[in-house]
């Protein structure tokens, strides 16, 4: 999917994090997921959402590499 924009990815990821209970004002590229109280179940669900929206399959090894919100956005952009 070459037409994926960073903004689209950012929106889906931000909306997901908010649905998991993260505060919208705390979410930015440098925010660490752990600091947003995002845990392994949230990340598993985020992987599903990313797969549904962008057709990008993330393995558990991929997910383990994600530390910040920016990492997640960049990973999807790179694979998309």
């Amino acid at each position, binding site marked *: 999917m070459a037409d994926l924009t960073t903004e689209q990815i950012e929106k889906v990821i931000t909306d997901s994090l908010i649905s998991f209970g993260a505060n919208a004002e705390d979410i930015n590229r440098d925010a660490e997921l752990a600091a947003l109280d995002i845990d392994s*179940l949230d990340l*598993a*669900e985020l992987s*599903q*959402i990313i797969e549904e929206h962008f057709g990008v399959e993330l393995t558990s090894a991929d997910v383990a590499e994600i530390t910040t919100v920016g990492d997640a956005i960049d990973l999807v952009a790179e694979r998309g």
Partner: protein
Amino acid sequence: MSHARPEGASALVTGGSRGIGAAIAGALAADGWPVAVNYRSAAAEAAATVASIEASGGRAVAIAGDVADPAVAALLLDAAAEALGGPVLALVNNAGVRADGLALSLSDEDWRIVLDTNLGSTYRLTRVALRAMIRARFGRVINIASVVGPRANAGQANYAASKAAVIAFTKTAAVEVARRGVTINAVAPGLIATDMTQDIPEAFREKVPAGRAGTPEEVAAAVAFLASERAGYITGSTVYVDGGLSA
């Protein structure tokens, strides 16, 4: 906060063509769940279960598939969701087999088939079903265990190991998804009058404090309750339906 059952949610009962599975399918349908009745080979009995549900005003569909086959879990859940028009948000892992023998003489094949059908299929179906459940913020997984497992029963080391493991799996999987409104519980039947227990000796029956075998409907009632919205705060539990056998 209790989560409401979403509109259009459907249920899947593995091994639902007869015995306890058929009673569970009937009880869920009576509670308004559209039900997929999975069967391995008993097509006529599955059709009869579906017909009986439809005659009572419920919705049901029969779906073939051997849950011991790892590829079947996703196919079965997809087929059920498609046929019933909504994701499977109540999964009853009921399919099970016995291949009895003393531990010292069990064959590897008897060990493998019992563990893979009873435990492996429970894990595989649950793993796939949880994807839709956590997204829906509602889900019910009910694993049919047995009083055999927590309790010894000579001649059933493989069956006991599979059912005790189902209870252990239930507990851990339950805590992993509890925050999403998804509950995972086990129901452990004792001696229940079905085709599968016809060969159980009378001496065993006499050990049951209630003095009788249970009925499939008595097991189904516990399952239907655990599947209901009312049971939203019960998770990781095992409900014994055994006439006091495990007490």
